């Protein structure tokens, strides 16, 4: 009887050492279409950034041309000089830095304090307080902005750093984040430390906080980005040009009431955006983590 020897059907394992070409040839049509669509859309998404940087190094005459120059033929830093000379841009950067850094530090500290308390401690009124705080997230910003403006005005905090900083030192989202995170920390550690004689502050500062670093990182990163980019609140709380933040200051350049300094807009935007881009690329993992922490249950 003839026996047919069947060779076992061995599929080649996908291993890391295959070349791009090999992998491309294994990609099916659906994947290819996906790549094409995604790349097109990604280009669309990134295009404004490219356009901003490219235009910032053209002189104004070359920006306002038709057809627009897609690849810059020159490299001129005149706009960057203008930005710092014709507007208090350096002051705006300083304002943004002061406000953003302080707010970030404040939120990281105060939200983790509150989160720790809600996560690990029992006290009367805990539930009520928690839900009131959470409910505040649901309230649209605009409802609070006008009364907040009046309060800040009455405190004589308009056009001051404290006016820009203090109301933003805490956030319900940040507190929620830290509470969720700290709930996962083992309480036995803290109890053990207390038995060993550590004070409450000691337990918090020397044990809870170091253990919470991942959560703190996410909170810090998002707060920093949010505060640096905040527009509405600083717009309302400042009227003196010297106290504006970067975002508000630049927004004053566009509008129908003035000759828009296109070059400055592009250069200023680049200066304001580049730190955030670098920041994002450095901490990308934390950014992506943080978004899911906010939006997914459990």
């Amino acid at each position, binding site marked *: 009887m003839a026996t047919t020897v069947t060779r076992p059907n061995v599929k080649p394992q996908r291993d890391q050492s295959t070349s791009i070409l090999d992998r491309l040839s294994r990609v099916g049509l659906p994947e290819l279409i996906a790549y094409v669509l995604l790349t097109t859309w990604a280009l669309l998404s990134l295009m404004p950034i490219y356009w901003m940087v490219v235009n910032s190094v053209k002189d104004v005459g070359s920006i306002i041309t038709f057809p627009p120059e897609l690849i810059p033929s020159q490299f001129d830093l005149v706009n960057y000089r203008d930005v710092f000379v014709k507007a208090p841009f350096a002051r705006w950067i300083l304002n943004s830095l002061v406000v953003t850094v302080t707010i970030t530090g404040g939120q990281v500290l105060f939200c983790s304090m*509150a989160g720790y308390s809600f996560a690990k401690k029992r006290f*009367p009124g805990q539930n009520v307080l928690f839900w009131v705080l959470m409910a505040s997230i649901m309230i649209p910003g605009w409802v609070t902005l006008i009364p907040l403006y009046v309060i800040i005005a009455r405190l004589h905090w308009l056009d001051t750093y404290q006016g820009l900083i203090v109301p933003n030192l805490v956030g319900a989202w940040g507190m929620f984040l830290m509470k969720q995170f700290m709930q996962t920390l083992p309480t036995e550690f803290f109890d053990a430390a207390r038995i060993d004689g550590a004070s409450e502050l000691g337990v918090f500062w020397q044990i809870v906080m170091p253990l919470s670093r991942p959560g703190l990182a996410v909170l810090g990163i998002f707060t920093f980005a949010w505060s640096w980019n905040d527009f509405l609140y600083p717009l309302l709380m400042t009227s003196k040009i010297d106290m504006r933040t970067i975002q508000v200051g630049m927004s004053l350049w566009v509008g129908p009431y003035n000759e828009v300094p296109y070059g400055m807009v592009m250069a200023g935007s680049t200066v304001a955006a580049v730190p955030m881009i670098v920041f994002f690329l450095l901490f990308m993992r934390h950014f992506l983590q943080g978004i899911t922490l906010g939006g997914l249950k459990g």
Partner: protein
Amino acid sequence: MIRMAQVKVTSTQIRSEPGILRQIWSARWAYFFIAPIAIIFLLFGLGPVLYGFFISLQDVKFGSPSFFVGLKNYVDALKDPYTWNALRVTLIFVVVLVPIATAVHLFLSVLIFRLPERAQTFYKAAFYLPAVISAVILTMIWWWIFNPTYGLANYVLTLVGAGTVPWISRPGPAIIAIIIMSVAGGGGGTIVLYTAALGGIPRHLYESADIDGARGWDRFWNITLPLLKPTTLYLLVTGTVGTFQIFTQVFLFTQGGPARTTETVAMLVYDTAFLGLRLGPAAATSILLFGVIALVAVFLFRTFSTDVEY
């Protein structure tokens, strides 16, 4: 005289819960840690909300004393045609932008999800990057792109033979431009969220569907989509609440023009309060907006929230 039950306290008896003051004292550290957030929140979070209601019932103007006018501000707001105009514009944004953006970004997420890890991270980063740059900067760049004379948008249109569009000077195109800007330039957060949620769908569901002979669209419609409902609900609600308050993009793009035809409710509140210096009416309008948003949010919750068992 109230008869009290006579209970002999013995050492073996469980002690009743300590009084409220005792509890507060023993939890004093908890209160200490909560103090900063509680104080700031009360002063600058909750306080303003209550104060806002109060202001809306008054005729508050700068420089002159304010006096109580009851519901006059609300009535005036509801009678003002500009209020309804702003509501109309805002609703256009909400009804058009939120579903389209969510659907498009869901589609992109599904595409991304099939790719290997490195590619996924690359695309997620590419889509999220615009969100890291401020809305102000992004809007200004897109505003320049949509410039009718020198912008890229009309340039591309002329290249393909279509005519130019008066993007900024007419309300219709302006609104469309803002929508394009939001859909094309935004969505990073949505995409990251959806791709994470897609990862949470158990594989075995797809496998059983494959055995039953389900094809691509069936799989998507009957498994993926329902299981993404919680995430979709979250995104729809946050997107709707956010879009109802759209301000920055419109403020920078058209300043509500031409002739207030692109004015959103948020812009109306801003104009009334800070250009018209009428805080009372502005507060009333903002609270009306709050009411509308709350209603819509409740409606969304009712419609989309179902318990999905798997």
